[in-house]
């Protein structure tokens, strides 16, 4: 297919100087926080919200909102990268790391190497467990110091900033460990199983 004609004078938003090394290839920095959803925004009440760890059919641990809020909290400042080419630098999040959840649940070692996150509204995404531990991921309940709004994934979302942001699943409710890698929602529609922005792993085959 021939190269499409260039539109005179069109460019993506200019990137500020000095951020070059923090913005992965093919991305540009934005100052707003775009919302992209695969479905309607769920309105889950905190009274009925729970978060669970699951292994096959068995429940390993479950927390109500009050119990979850009482767990050790961590605050991080990270860069996030959406597969649709926008990146946001220095975003602040607070929540409970997956390490803390595993520790409190008494799961020192997991035998399963993969996990699927299940969310209100039916969204799913798959990740290697290795990418969820050692401080790499959390269940986030606050963004920029405020409670996470529903359109951005509240009450709680998975946050895995080193992968493309579709892996940071909104409205997270359950983390299920599995033996084999299985494609989640977008992975089943041609998106990469892993999603490393620094290797531009946007689509399967990349």
């Amino acid at each position, binding site marked *: 297919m021939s190269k499409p004609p260039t539109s005179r004078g*069109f460019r*993506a938003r200019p990137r500020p100087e000095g951020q070059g090394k923090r913005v992965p290839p093919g991305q540009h920095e934005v100052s707003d926080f775009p919302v992209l959803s695969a479905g309607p925004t769920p309105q889950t009440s905190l009274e009925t919200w729970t978060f669970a760890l699951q292994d096959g059919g068995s429940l390993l641990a479950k927390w109500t909102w009050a119990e979850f809020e009482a767990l050790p909290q961590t605050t991080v400042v990270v860069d996030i990268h959406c597969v649709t*080419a926008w990146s946001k630098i220095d975003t602040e999040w607070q929540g409970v790391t997956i390490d803390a959840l595993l520790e409190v649940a008494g799961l020192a070692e997991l035998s399963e190497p993969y996990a699927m996150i299940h969310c209100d509204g039916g969204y799913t995404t798959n990740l290697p467990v290795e990418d969820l531990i050692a401080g790499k991921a959390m269940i986030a309940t606050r963004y920029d110091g405020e409670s996470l709004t529903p359109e951005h994934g509240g009450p709680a979302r998975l946050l895995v900033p080193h992968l493309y942001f579709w892996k940071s699943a909104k409205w997270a409710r359950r983390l299920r460990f599995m033996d084999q890698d299985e494609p989640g929602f977008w992975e089943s529609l041609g998106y990469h199983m892993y999603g490393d922005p620094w290797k531009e792993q946007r689509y399967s085959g990349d």
Partner: protein
Amino acid sequence: MAEVNDVIPETHRVKTLLLGIPGWPGHLPGQHVDVRLTGEDGYQAQRSYSIASAPDAFHVSLTVERISDGEVSPYLVDELHAGDRLELRGPIGGHFVWTATQGGPLFLIAGGSGIVPLMAMLRHRSAAGSTVPAVLLYSSRTLEDIIYREELSNLVGKGDGLTVAHALTRARPAGWAGYARRIDQPMLAEVGFPASARPRVFVCGPTSIVESASQLLLGLGHERSLIKTERFGPTGG
């Protein structure tokens, strides 16, 4: 590949692009095109825009509202000028379409830039010499935001069975005689055709307005199969 022949300001935020498109197959009122922009670095952005012109107009025209922080509309409204080329494909869409042969009555409801495809329908209606009874209810933020205001007034002045009612939701001039609130059920009942007249209804604008108006119309007894909707991305009105 289209060539921009002229760029016409409509409001402080809205411009109409007059395009020459070799090989254009013609279109039906209500259809749209997909516009694609490609930067020097290969970055691409694509958006859909409704065709504003009637099928037999000399130019194919697109009316575009600049969305602050938008990716494509600021380029089309602020940067593009006569002589530039624009990559587009179309016409697209066989559902949200009205031609005079479909008959009426015709009940059009527009929110903000949702007026564009409905204007193509009204321009076609006028060009075809149709006297199908038609009502347009058009919601905008302020008087200055009304697109095609003068042309709509002229169409009404033809006396061929078209009524236009405006609703201003944010601010209105002194002595304003039109509606001064968001579209609601009493307004639809007052200005539109009764459900018993079985009008063909077309609603276009931001998703929130479209869904709200559709529900209200169903509540007034209009048949679902006679209501056609097209949701736009966020805009005013």
